């Protein structure tokens, strides 16, 4: 890890510094070029990993980047945010052999950085050319990873794409939802620019489905629609004290931090408790610590092995001084002066046959800031009122990411399939685009 110096330096320092040319060559040489490689099977987008690594090895990083983009146009972001330790690197045979997989993520970043930062930014050429215009129009709702992936693939096939996004900036969670140290130097916007560089894609921000736009309108006006709206309204906590000053939603905390021009203007507590056990909890806790909180604790209601955050992520939090407390759940948030939070009462839990239950034994953790990272939910209003079939409170899709409506496809976190990961969103968008293309031609 790079040296973090100065206030907030950790927030702007790459969690994994990029490899230089020699490091990339040595690391690439470790790849065995497996047959029917397990890492490829483990990658949700099925990137030909041994091939792109060999292309790095032989001094062809541009060709390597193209191999990556062929399956995953957001390969640059995925290189930064994928939990590779549970995906490709977990499957790498060198993990089996010596507990030290090939650093596939770092190599992917090496190649994609080369393409995005050096080559393409200088020559302003996009690695793909659009096919002849087909005259078909497709609407993509949501400029997050699934929407961008879908739009790019459709543009390649020559369809005219319009993307609507509710935010001020495109990128979705890449822009708003991921810890800053995973995507430094405005990378999310750089990548959006790269994706749009193919041409044939119009982007309109500040347009919200259900408010400024209805599914009826878009299905009338376009030949096909892709829905990649992600998750929205946060699971509301019904714990007593949730309304106190100093209690905030972790997703909003991260979004505010990512958009901040001046970290010192963000209010951060001295003692921060984060409630939750997923990646968002980790991202919020680590960033709280980097912002200067003295004590940061993650309180997770179930045992360690049930945590959604990978072991690697947990260790990352711990090396940043975050304490992780397992099997404790919030009973109430305690008020201090002026309606401000003063602490959280936490109760120990046990897991038995009947699920999770409290033990009646509790303690109070002092806190002046509480961040709730207890998951997000899909805002189903627009979809439901239009009659789209749902399952598990999300949009129901088939293997091609087609919904119950003949003109609507969907992907990313809003669908009931795959995991809520950037890389799955990219794959959804790609599969949907292929299916849309087949249906339009």
């Amino acid at each position, binding site marked *: 890890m790079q040296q973090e110096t100065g206030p907030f330096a950790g927030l702007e320092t790459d969690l994994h510094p990029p490899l230089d040319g*020699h490091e990339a*060559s*040595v690391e*690439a*040489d470790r790849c*065995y*070029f*497996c*047959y*029917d*490689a*397990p890492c490829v099977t483990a990658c949700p987008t099925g990137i030909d990993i041994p091939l792109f690594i060999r292309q790095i*090895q032989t001094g062809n990083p541009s060709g390597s980047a193209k191999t990556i983009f062929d399956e995953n146009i957001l390969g640059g972001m995925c290189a930064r945010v994928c939990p590779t330790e549970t995906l490709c690197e977990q499957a790498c*045979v*060198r993990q*089996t*052999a010596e507990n030290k997989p090939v650093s596939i993520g770092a190599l992917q970043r090496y190649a994609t950085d080369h393409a995005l930062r050096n080559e393409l930014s200088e020559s302003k050429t996009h690695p793909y050319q659009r096919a002849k215009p087909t005259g078909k129009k497709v609407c993509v709702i949501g400029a997050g990873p699934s929407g961008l992936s879908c739009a790019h693939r459709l543009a390649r096939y020559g369809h005219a794409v319009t993307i609507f996004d509710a935010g001020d900036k495109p990128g979705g969670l890449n822009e708003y939802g991921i810890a800053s140290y995973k995507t430094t130097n405005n990378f999310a916007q750089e990548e959006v620019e790269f994706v749009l560089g193919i041409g044939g894609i119009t982007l309109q921000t500040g347009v919200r489905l259900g408010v400024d736009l209805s599914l009826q309108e878009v299905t009338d006006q376009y030949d096909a629609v892709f829905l990649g709206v992600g998750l929205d309204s946060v699971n509301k906590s019904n714990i007593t004290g949730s309304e106190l000053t100093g209690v905030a939603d972790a997703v909003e905390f991260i979004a505010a931090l990512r958009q901040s021009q001046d970290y010192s203007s963000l209010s951060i507590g001295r003692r921060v408790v984060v409630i939750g056990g997923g990646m968002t909890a980790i991202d919020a806790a680590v960033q709280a610590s980097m912002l200067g909180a003295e004590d940061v604790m993650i309180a997770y209601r179930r045992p360690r092995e049930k945590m959604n955050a990978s072991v690697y992520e947990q260790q990352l939090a711990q090396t940043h001084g975050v304490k992780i407390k397992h099997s404790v759940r919030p009973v109430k948030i305690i008020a201090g002066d002026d309606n401000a939070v003063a602490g959280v009462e936490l109760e120990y839990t046990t897991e038995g046959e009947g699920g999770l239950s409290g033990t009646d034994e509790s303690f109070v953790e002092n806190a002046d800031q509480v961040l709730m990272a207890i998951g997000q939910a899909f805002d189903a209003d627009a979809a439901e009122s239009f009659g789209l079939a749902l399952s598990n409170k999300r949009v129901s899709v088939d293997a091609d990411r087609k919904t119950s409506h003949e003109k609507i496809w969907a992907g990313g976190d809003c669908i009931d399939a795959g995991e809520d990961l950037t890389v799955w969103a990219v794959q959804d968008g790609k599969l949907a685009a292929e299916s849309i293309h087949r249906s339009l031609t």
Partner: protein
Amino acid sequence: MADLSNDFIGIKSPNPFWLASAPPTDKAYNVTRAFEAGWGGVVWKTLGEDPHIVNVNGPRYGVVHSADRRLIGLNNIELITDRPLDINLEEIKQVKRDWPDRAMVVSLMVPCEEPNWKSILKRVEDTGADGVELNFGCPHGMSERGMGSSVGQVPEYIEMVTRWCKEATDMPVIVKLTPNINDIRYPARAALAGGADAVSLINTVSSIVSVNLDTMSPEPSIDGKGSHGGYCGPAVKPIALNMVAEIARDSETAELPISGIGGISNWRDAAEFMALGAGNVQVCTAAMTYGFKVVQEMITGLEQWMDEKGHTDLQSIIGKATPNVTDWQYLNLNFVSKAVIDQDKCIQCGRCHVVCEDTSHQAITQSVDGKRHFQVIDEECVGCNLCVSVCPVDECITMQQMTSGVDPRTNSPINSEYQNWTTHPNNPMANS
């Protein structure tokens, strides 16, 4: 503790590790440092006549690197010493006086005329050096002037020059051979016929090490042009080993002492050369890559191995593998082996499968019962060793001999009798 002291054609040194004639032995300063580090002897950088030659003033070396820039092969376009003869001779004399227990051999290359050789030999004798090495090997630069490998490629010249030298001096004469020739036995026989006390081999292999694709110049590039150079280092070891073995097992030269050279980088390489018949070894590239200290690894490694194997002195290892080098036609065709994959060691990379499937005998499964699983199909396995060669895990795939039963590939019973091609029924020239 095993005794490493070496007596090579009467030249004594405390160990069998000599530095080959090359930049590491170009000056008193280098050679003194080498002796301090523990080298048993040196062959001084090749001397020529005055006016001394000149070297290029640009890069002399080119390399083949591994991904981690480990040096695998080294190429050079350097010539013989570029210092005046007097200075070299004075330094040789001084160093030999300072280090009487180390071997001091002087390498020579002068035009192919008897007086030239005679006169330089006289001057070398005066230094107290232990012997001379005739450089008939360098493949670049000097060969264009009728010296070096252009002599070494013509056995008659080797014999003639060797004879002149033997007549002119009592010092032991080693003839250094070039590998840039079809059959190494002819120059070795010629050296013997001329009276050589020993041969040393190999000198460097003619080579172009790489081409710069931006400038379209071979490397090392001198003002946009390159010239072929001499290749050495780990990459040439197999070529050198074979040539040493060819001379050691040739009935005409079996008794001719050999100083083994070519890619020796550690004690094991040295032991292999000696097992194939070399009486001692010379090293250049390993020293040029890591410095003189490598000799300490070589000495301790060889000692350790000899102790473990119960070899008390070098005589008990020299030539021990030579009788096992034979011609293909005498290999036992009744010896059957099959690859066996240790499933506990297998890491599932699948390379054994794909290389066997694509380029060999379709003898390794890809899946068994729908699961990724690599297993040898004895009915197809010809025992070629390709899977063993490409497997990234030590000892995961091994070749195991079948000693009884029926070979499932040929359906023939395993025959414990030795049978080779000379008597095989498929051989139209079989002699029985």
